[in-house]
């Protein structure tokens, strides 16, 4: 249904519409080859991706896990060097007497824990904490917060670390900040 109101043959409008509909100028069509090549390239690049969407995902997950593992190894290597003097200088409370605070986010025992990742953070944190406590390398702020959260408060860290064993139940590498218990934080001055 062609609509051409006000007047079918308004000369002023005809002139304008003629200009609007004028054949394409050379300027408008400049770069046709480059554009067609770019489009074909985009199309080729996009087309296979839509079919193999799973593969990049798997690759990135593998890459992410490798980075995590490599990072853990690096931390272990670093703190491993430092843990020896720290251990000799700071007497840890005896594991038998120190109560083990509940570990936030620990899954129920029925769930299969992830043993490969659960043990290293705690051991690493404690090694770093002990080093810092002995006046050595200060502990990374985020690790310290995570450790305190895991221990149930700053005051409980010593006990937590004293009781740390590789057989401890699974615990996520990075507890969410919101899970950080606030109450024990206030009992800052209470010595362990």
């Amino acid at each position, binding site marked *: *249904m062609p609509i051409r109101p006000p007047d079918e043959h308004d000369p*002023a409008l005809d*002139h304008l519409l003629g200009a609007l509909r004028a*054949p*394409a100028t050379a300027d*408008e*069509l400049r770069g*046709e080859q480059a554009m067609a*090549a770019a489009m074909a390239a985009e199309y080729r690049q996009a087309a296979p991706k*839509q079919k193999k969407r799973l593969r990049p995902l798997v690759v990135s997950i593998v890459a992410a896990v490798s980075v995590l593992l490599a990072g853990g190894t690096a931390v272990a290597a670093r703190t491993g060097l430092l843990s020896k003097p720290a251990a000799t200088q700071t007497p840890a409370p005896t594991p038998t007497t120190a109560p083990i605070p509940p570990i936030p986010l620990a899954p129920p025992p029925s769930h299969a824990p992830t043993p490969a990742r659960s043990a290293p953070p705690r051991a690493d944190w404690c090694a770093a904490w002990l080093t810092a406590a002995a006046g050595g390398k200060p502990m990374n702020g985020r690790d310290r917060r995570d450790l305190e959260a895991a221990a149930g408060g700053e005051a409980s860290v010593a006990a937590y670390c004293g009781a740390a064993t590789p057989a401890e139940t699974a615990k996520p590498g990075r507890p969410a900040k919101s899970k950080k218990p606030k109450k024990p934080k206030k009992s800052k001055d209470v010595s362990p």
Partner: protein
Amino acid sequence: MLEGVRHLPKDDELAAALTAARAGDERGFAVLWRALHPAVLRYLRVLAGDAAEDVASETWLQIARDLGRFTGDPAAFRAWLFRVARHRGIDEVRRSGRRREDPAETVDTGSAGPDAAAEVIEGDETAWALSRVALLPTDQAEAVMLRVVAGLDVATTARVLGKRRGAVRIATMRGLRRLAADPQVVHRAADSRDSSERV
């Protein structure tokens, strides 16, 4: 008949080009681009001013990326193309609108405004005409461009604009009326008649 930019290819040519493009043939893309780019560019000049060329390029690249998922005839392709162009153009206007608020660029006000099209090619009749359309309220300007320049029918234009057909008809009519009453349009038409009579 609102036939759009002159020398538009027929639908069967476009259908063949679409098939070729889907097979990854560069020539297919070339035919599609040559056929529809001028109308896309003119539409975007009205919508996004100076940014039209960049927005048009982005539009075509997005079309190429998503062509694998497109299944439709040339009419559907045209509608899809202008819908993508429209969204990209609107995004650009929003971006540049924000940029204009930037103190460093306050001097450059109105760069995406109605006169932008005229600044690109001074004296060019098409550019001038586009600059007059760009002065219309946006809904009228878009309706006029899609109906008159892109050659889309009312139903397709309504789909592209996300409006009812009645609203598209009214916007087109009001836009054309306003243009017919535009003093510059009247004078320019009279001038061109005079000069052609004198020659």
